[in-house]
């Protein structure tokens, strides 16, 4: 079981880097869906025994992170008729290098942390790496929709860290967190839709009317 979990965690890092490197929005969203699926499998593999809690968390995560949100984002692209590419502020190669740097940094930091109950030594470094890569996507991409993708990756990183505590944090809370993320992205999607209509573009850097 543990080696499968490790494999999945490595795949999560790969999906992070893949999202950083893709040029098309639609593949970005596919990468996100794949990552959501991987995250959904993890609670089942990490739990010491299969409980209602682990199964519920897995099902909820797959539904929200692998199905509903990617489908919704894909819908937003179609409706807004965005065919154009990701438009990074920092180039693709540079951002992948940044991503690799983030992974290295994450492992360096995690090895120094006084780790909580270590059932999965990879969990904390992968969580930190995903968090940082989410930040990179959020800050170095122009399109409002890609910023939503960045926020979701960041949130996935936090979810991974949450898995270290999953036996101790009640199910209800995890459900609340998932619901909040879901509604948050839903509202962001609606705002993105309006931005596209008002500005004829999803470019968030054009949002510059409000200054002092």
């Amino acid at each position: 079981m543990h080696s499968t979990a490790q494999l999945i965690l490595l795949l999560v890092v790969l999906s992070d880097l893949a999202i950083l490197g893709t040029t098309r929005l639609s593949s970005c969203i596919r990468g996100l869906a794949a990552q959501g699926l991987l995250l959904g499998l993890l609670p089942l593999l990490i739990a010491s025994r299969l409980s209602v809690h682990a199964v519920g968390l897995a099902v909820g995560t797959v539904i929200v992170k692998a199905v509903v949100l990617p489908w919704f984002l894909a819908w937003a692209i179609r409706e807004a008729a965005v065919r154009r590419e990701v438009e990074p502020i920092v180039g693709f190669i540079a951002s992948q290098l940044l991503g690799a740097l983030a992974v290295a940094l994450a492992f360096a930091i995690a090895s120094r942390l006084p780790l909580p109950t270590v059932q999965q030594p990879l969990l904390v470094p992968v969580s930190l790496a995903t968090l940082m890569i989410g930040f990179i996507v959020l800050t170095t991409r122009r399109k409002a929709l890609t910023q939503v993708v960045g926020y979701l990756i960041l949130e996935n990183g936090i979810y991974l860290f949450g898995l270290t505590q999953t036996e101790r944090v009640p199910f209800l809370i995890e459900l609340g967190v998932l619901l909040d993320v879901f509604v948050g992205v839903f509202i962001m999607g609606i705002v993105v839709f309006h931005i596209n209509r008002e500005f004829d573009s999803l470019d968030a850097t054009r949002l510059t009317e409000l200054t002092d």
Partner: protein
Amino acid sequence: MRLLVISALPLLVALAVLTVPAFRGRRVPVALLAAVALAHLALVTSLWITPEPPTLGGWLAVDPLGLTVLTLTSVLFLVTVIYAVGYLRHEKPGSGRVFAGCLLAFLTAASVVALAQHLAMVWVGMEATTLAVAPLIFLRRDRRSLEATWKYLVISSVGIALALLGTFFLASAQGDGAGHPLLLPDLIEHARELHPAWLRAAFLFLLVGFGTKMGLAPMHTWKPDTYGEAPSLVSALMAGALTSCAFLGVARVTEVVMAAGLGPFAQPVLIAFGLLSLAVAAAFIIGQGDVKRLLAYSSVEHMGLLVLGLGLGGVGAYGSMLHLVNNGLSKGWVFLITGNIVLATGSSTAAGNRGLVRTLPVSAALLVLGLFAVTGSPPFGTFMSEFTILRAAIEAGHPWLAAVMLLLLAISFVGMAALVLGMALGEPEPGTLRVRESPWLVAGPIALAAIVLMLGVYVPGPLHDVLARAAAALGGTGP
């Protein structure tokens, strides 16, 4: 039981408003809003009179800190709803049920934050406040409000995500066997057994995360845009109630850190954020041309004062609690009055408004009085609380800090006075007529002003008691 009703009633009504077809269209069910607001305030008031045992296995309970924030929220909500009666005669939102539903959802979320004793539940409630308010900022549906909504959503979502990480760090700090996970009373009781490195990390992340929602500098950048573009009654609710809930989040983790004996680590951090917020606010208040943006920076200033008081400890914690009440009430008051000006002239800038004393006499008078309340001048309550925080700085042996504080507050006063007096006095543009001010639009602000004025002269016994107990929980002392 009462705690469950307080947190769930607005949600149930919100769901009804959002789903029942009868509420479609532009008409806002104001009577329903008013009924919920009154019931909520009545229940909250009853908590002051008779105590209520914790419910849901200790997840919901009333403590002095939570009760203060809950009451403040409830009062501001009622005032906002009364104001909405007059407001909706002039401006109709595109969708009545989104307007009412989001307001009610906000009330639920804020009540959950105030009553929650489980820190993850505090987080869930806080994130829900962000989401409930976002559609309200976008009420006007134009480019500027769209930009403001987007900035608000992205910055607060990232901030609140960091707070979630901080919450998990706190669970890590607890390890196994230090009581129930993330339950506040257990965390405080076993504070000395918490892992200090994780606790420090948790404190920093929660401070930055909830600090983003408070609008502490340098995470305040969404604030002027959001308060500037949102309808004034939404800004009033945000600046008065939402920021207080966010402060409660910071206060919760401060309680734990103080109980763990990590005060010497946490206090300088709080003081640094406080001073930076005061400085940034002073810098942007000078030369500001728009009252709503000005008030947003003033909110940054007061959030800074709140964490400064926490950081100074001693009597400063009491000062912060008192200031929380004063600031919430006076921000609600001044934002609603600004709303009247925008309704009458369509603008909140100094360029678009001159001689308001002639055209809107009651509102102009309340605006000028509000200027003095917001800047902490006697005889208003804000003066008492700011003075208490100042005293704490001197008692803690930082006279230079008190001097810097005074200087920054003075700069902010000059900047605000220049703008507000310029708008209120002078000759109105030729041809502007005197506007009739509906009682609905001024009654609430007058009530809030009366309370702030009273708090400057006399703090009622029960309130004093609750604030002092809250201050003690934060590692400080009563006055």
